């Protein structure tokens, strides 16, 4: 199964190729100005649905997305809730058939050749398990070995490695239903990688995990990427995942791709401002007192003001922090200072909230 990786990637140039991908859902909407119908819908749903006239609305969950991912990349797929992340992932794994557009993964169209496609990918959907609920973990693994036709020596080698990396030994004989969330996720990761997939699709792989468990999972992802060249596409709301794992991020919102590039570039474009929080000894400018210009600095804007606490924002390129601090302390009696570097989390949040990437 490992052999798919090399020849397919070589021929195609990209392991995952997505062109103008779109998925529109037709949903029933309650129409508020149509009072009769809305009462009807509430009162007699859902059995009437088949026969009653429907008000249909189209939701463009994914609306024309294109990207290419080369073999060996680790790509973060980010966006606010409802942006279309899971829908995209479901199309790439072959669970959903798109409305239009093309996808090839290792040269195959996921929903056309389901069995061959899923034999070459691994998937972990954080919310649910792919293991047999009432069986000990090791028996689920054994079933997967049979299903994927994993050669015995390969299976043994992988299992041994994952037992080490994910510290599975403590619960290999435990039924899945009795595992903690962290243990279950580790078992699911091992299950997804037993057959040496070329691509690993992860939907919220660290959701609900504690710090230690998150770190263990991230270490595992980095390891399989480095050692086996496994390509990884992951959605997450935890930006630490992105910072620790991803060479590249795709940001989508409203079903459209807004950004495709690396993190530092994103930071430079949208998160470039550092902040200096200054605590003054006196409350200048409050109570009608005169703001005599001592607070103004070219290139640094006051973005927040709370009594004697003033927050400046400034660009790294325009103003040096040392300069700003020197001037401030010369002009004013400063009690305390704090310099805040822009973090990726704030940057991405700002992008979502202010729709910085729109249009």
């Amino acid at each position, binding site marked *: 199964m490992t052999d798919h990786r090399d020849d397919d990637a070589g021929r195609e140039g990209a392991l995952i190729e997505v062109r103008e991908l779109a998925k529109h*859902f037709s949903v029933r909407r309650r129409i508020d100005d149509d009072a009769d119908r809305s009462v009807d819908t509430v009162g007699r749903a*859902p*059995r009437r*649905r*088949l026969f009653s006239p429907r008000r249909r609305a189209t939701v463009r*969950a994914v609306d024309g997305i294109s990207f290419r991912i080369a073999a060996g990349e680790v790509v973060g797929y980010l966006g606010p809730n409802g942006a279309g992340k*899971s*829908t995209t992932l*479901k199309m790439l*794994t*072959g*669970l*959903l*058939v*798109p*409305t*239009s*557009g093309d996808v090839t993964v290792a040269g195959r169209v996921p*929903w*056309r*050749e*389901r*069995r*061959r496609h*899923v*034999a070459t990918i691994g*998937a972990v*959907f954080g919310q*649910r398990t*792919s293991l*047999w*609920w*009432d*069986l000990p973990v090791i*028996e689920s693994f054994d*079933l*997967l070995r*049979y*299903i*994927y*036709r994993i050669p015995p020596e390969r299976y043994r080698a992988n299992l041994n490695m994952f037992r080490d990396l994910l510290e599975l030994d403590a619960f290999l004989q435990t*039924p899945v239903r009795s595992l903690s969330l962290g243990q279950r996720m580790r078992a699911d990761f091992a299950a997804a990688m037993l057959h040496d997939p070329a691509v690993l699709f992860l939907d919220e792989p660290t959701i609900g995990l504690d710090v230690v468990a998150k770190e263990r999972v991230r270490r595992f992802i980095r390891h399989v990427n480095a050692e086996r060249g496994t390509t990884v596409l992951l959605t997450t709301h935890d930006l630490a995942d992105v910072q620790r794992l991803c060479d590249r991020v795709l940001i989508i919102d409203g079903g459209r791709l807004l950004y495709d590039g690396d993190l530092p570039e994103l930071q430079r474009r949208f998160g470039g401002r550092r902040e200096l929080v200054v605590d003054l000894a006196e409350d200048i400018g409050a109570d009608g007192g005169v703001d005599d210009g001592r607070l103004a600095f070219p290139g640094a804007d006051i973005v927040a003001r709370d009594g004697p606490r003033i927050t400046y924002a400034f660009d790294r390129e325009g103003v040096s922090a040392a300069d700003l601090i020197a001037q401030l302390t010369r002009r004013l009696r400063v009690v305390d200072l704090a310099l805040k570097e822009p973090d990726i989390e704030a940057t991405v949040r700002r992008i979502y909230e202010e729709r910085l990437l729109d249009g």
Partner: protein
Amino acid sequence: MATQRRGADDAATPPVGAGEFVRHNAGLLVRLVHAQVRSQTQFRMSFTMDVVTSFLVFAFEFGALAALFVRFHTLGGWTLGQVAFMGGLTAMSFKTMDMLFSGFDPADFGDGVRKGTFDAILLRPAPLTIQVLGSRFVFHRLGAIAEGLAVFALANWLVDVRWTAAKLAFLPVVFIGQMAFFAALFIAGSTVTFWTVDSIEAVNILTYGGHELNQYPAHIYPLPLRRFFTYVVPTLFLCYYPALYLLDKPDPTGMPPWARFVGPAIGLACFALANALWGVGIRHYRSTGT
């Protein structure tokens, strides 16, 4: 742009020879069913309770039936033994089907489609039908099957069935035909849940209602009901008419003589039809949104 379609799942060329393909998937089915049995027998106490309970339920039902006959002696001209003969026969085949095709039980299958457990099946490189069959196996139906067998044996003791070689050969055919028919209802019902889960109750009426219906001599039912279960959903061909033949009873419904023998063929035809529908369902299935 052309509408995207899913490929025909199980028609995809296997990466191995055909013989090996069949062997592998038969082995897979055995393993999956074994996993289900192991899962259920892990809770030994609750498993035993389940088997005992389902046996008891059936025993009480039979007791109630027998009590009726103490009062009324016959039902539509049939004795207790003759009704029990039909009841036992239909129970055996229906409950066996209910066990073997648990994975296609529309209520559970529809649940899986809605909750996304069917997605886990789509993510594994094995035929969907095998996986669905192996996704659930209600082992404790053995209790009900044993009860059906007991009722059938009891009936044979109560009634002097004039067994001939032809009848003995026909009996397993009736058994299989009825299984195929109800399995067809299960499969068709599950397929429908790809589009809507609202019609599960309607399918359940046909399945469980049809099974109940098949336990009693059909001529006691009102004509419209009989017509529906003869011409729309041909349930009555599966057990009632074959039972007329096996018990040498006259046909008060006035059907031609061949009506007693077409049941199994109808069952198998419905099974084939349901499988075709299942194939269409798989190709058009588009998973749930989130």
